[in-house]
C-alpha cells in the first residue's frame, strides 16, 4: 500500500513539475521544482486520489515539501483514527 501511495505521488509531482526522476527526498519548493501556486493542485489531487481531507493546519512545507513527506502524511491520514 505505501509503495503504491509513493508511486502515485511521484508520478503526479513529476507531471506537475514537468521533470522526470525527481529525488523523492528533495525539497520541491526550495529547489524551485514546484511553487506555492502548485499547492492547491497538489491538495486537490491528494484529497481526491486518497479520499482524505486535509485540514488548513496541516498545510505546511513539513507535510508537503517533498514526495517522501507527502507519502508519510498521506499514510498517516489514511489510518483509521
Amino acid at each position, binding site marked *: 500500500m505505501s509503495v503504491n501511495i509513493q508511486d502515485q505521488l511521484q508520478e503526479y509531482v513529476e507531471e506537475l513539475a514537468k521533470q522526470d526522476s525527481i529525488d523523492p527526498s528533495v525539497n520541491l519548493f526550495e529547489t*524551485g521544482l514546484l511553487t506555492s501556486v502548485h499547492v492547491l493542485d497538489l491538495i486537490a489531487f491528494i484529497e481526491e486520489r486518497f479520499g482524505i481531507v486535509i485540514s*488548513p*493546519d496541516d*498545510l505546511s512545507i513539513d507535510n508537503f515539501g517533498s514526495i517522501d513527506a507527502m507519502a508519510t502524511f498521506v499514510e498517516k491520514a489514511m489510518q483509521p483514527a
Partner: protein
Amino acid sequence: MVPVHELLRRTATDSPDKEAVVCGDSRVSYGTVDEAATALAAFLASRGIGRGDRVGIFATKSVEEIVAIYGILRAGAAFVHINPQYRDVHLRHVIADCGIKTVFLDGSRARIFAGACGEAGFSGPIISLSDELALDGKTFSDVTHLTSIVGTTPRQQFRPTDVGPDDLAAIIYTSGSTGMPKGIMVTHRIFHDATVASAEVLHNVPADRIISVTPFSFDGALSQLFTATLVGGTLVQQRSSFPKDIVDTLLKERISGFHAVPSLWGVLLQERSPFPQYRYPHLRYVSIIGEVLPAKHLARLRGLLASTQFYLMYGTTEAFRSTYLPPADLDRKPGSAGIPFPGVSLKVVDDAGNQCPPGETGTIVHSGAFVSPGYWNDPERTKATFVNGWLHTGDQGRIDEEGYLYYAGRRDGLIKAQGFRVSPEEVETCIHQLDAVAEAVVIGVPAQEIGTAVKAIVVLQVGANATANDVINHCRRGLPHYMVPSIVEFRPALPKTNGHKINRAALV
C-alpha cells in the same frame, strides 16, 4: 547621504547584540552580520572586485544572502539579486546583460545555475552560501564557501570603498511589456532616501519584527531589509510560502510588520488557509503594494486584524515608491493609492504631456526622490521612459482634487499577476513555439483569489490539434511560474486593428 552598508555599521556599533536576522532556527546579531559583511568585502576586494562591478546573487531566503548584499555593497560593487524563479533563458540573459562575473549561489539554486551556465562557460568566481553545492558534474573551477571566507579573511585592515550617492548600488531586473527582463539601476542615494522615507511613513522602531516573504530581487523586499537595519529592528526571513508556515512565523516570531503583494493576501484568505483562525496582537502594520487589493479582501483583512494599521502603496521599480495612503484615510478615500512620499512629485499627463485636470485619467509620471538613473545598457529605452527628470510609468491613473492617486491599470498590455510583471509578448513567444499554434495573444483578466490571472487566447493552425493543457504544460517548461497562463481559450480568429495588429482592447 549614508550608504545602507554604513547604516548597518552604525546599528551594529550601537547595538551589536540586537537580533538582526532570523531564518528558521538561525538567529544572528547585528554585530555578526556586520563582521561577516566586512570579511566578505575584504575578500571581494582581494579578488579585485570593487566599484562599478556587478555581482550576482542567485539564492532563496537565508541569513547568508543578506551578508552577501551588505558585503558586496561594502566592497563598493553593485549587487544583482536574480529572481529565484528564473530558469535557463532568463538567468543567462541577466548574467550576460549586465556582465556578472562573480556570483553567490545557494544549494537550492546550484543545479539550475549549472544547467543554465555550465555550458555557456561561466568561469568567474562562485561563492557558495551553503555547505554543499550540487553542480551536476559541471566544472566550475573557482568555488569558495562563504563560511570559510568569514572564518579566515583578515578584516582589521579593510577599509570600505568610498561610494558616492550616485554610484550604482544594485540592478533590479523586471519584465517589461516587450522582450526580456530589463535592468533598472539603483543608486546608493535611492536606497538611502527610500529607506529613510519608508521608515518615517511606517513609523518603524527598534522593536519592529518584520517578516520577509518576497525575494530580494524585488525592491519592496529590499526596502524592508534596509528599513529594519536603519532602525535596528529584526528581519525574519520566511522560506516557505505555505499559509500554515506563514501563520506559524507570524505567531512564533511575534511579527509586527508585514509587507505583501495582494496575491499573497489572496492565498492567506482562501478557504484552505488557517490564517483567519488566529489573532495577531503583535501585528502593528501591514503594507500592500504591487497591484490593487480587491476591496472585499481589504474589508475582510481589516475585520480580522482590527488593531493593525493598513498602508496601501503604489510604486514602480523605476522609482521605488511613489505614494502611500495614510491609514486614517482608508475609509475617506476608498480605492485610492494615496499621496506622494516625502520628496516625490506626482502628476497625471495626457498623450501630449500636458497635466490632466483633477479626476481625469492619464499616464502617471513621477519626479523628485527615488528616480532611477535609467535602464542598464539601454540608453534608448531610458531616454523614452525618463523625460526631463520625470519617470513615465506606463501606468494609468487619476488624481483627485485633494491630490490622492487612483491607479487605473497598465497602458501597454503589461500584466501584473501575483505581484509580478508579466510581459504578454514573452508568454506569446513561448506559446508560438508550439507547431499547432497559428496566433496567440496573452492578456490579464480579473481572478477570484489572485487578483489578476494570465489568460492566453489561441488560434490553432488549420487541421491542428492542441488542448489547453498542452499550452500550459509547454509554458511551464520554459517560463517562470507566474508567467504561465492559468486560462487558455481557443478561438477561430483574433480581432485586428487596421494595421493588422491584434486588437488587445477588443479582447478584454
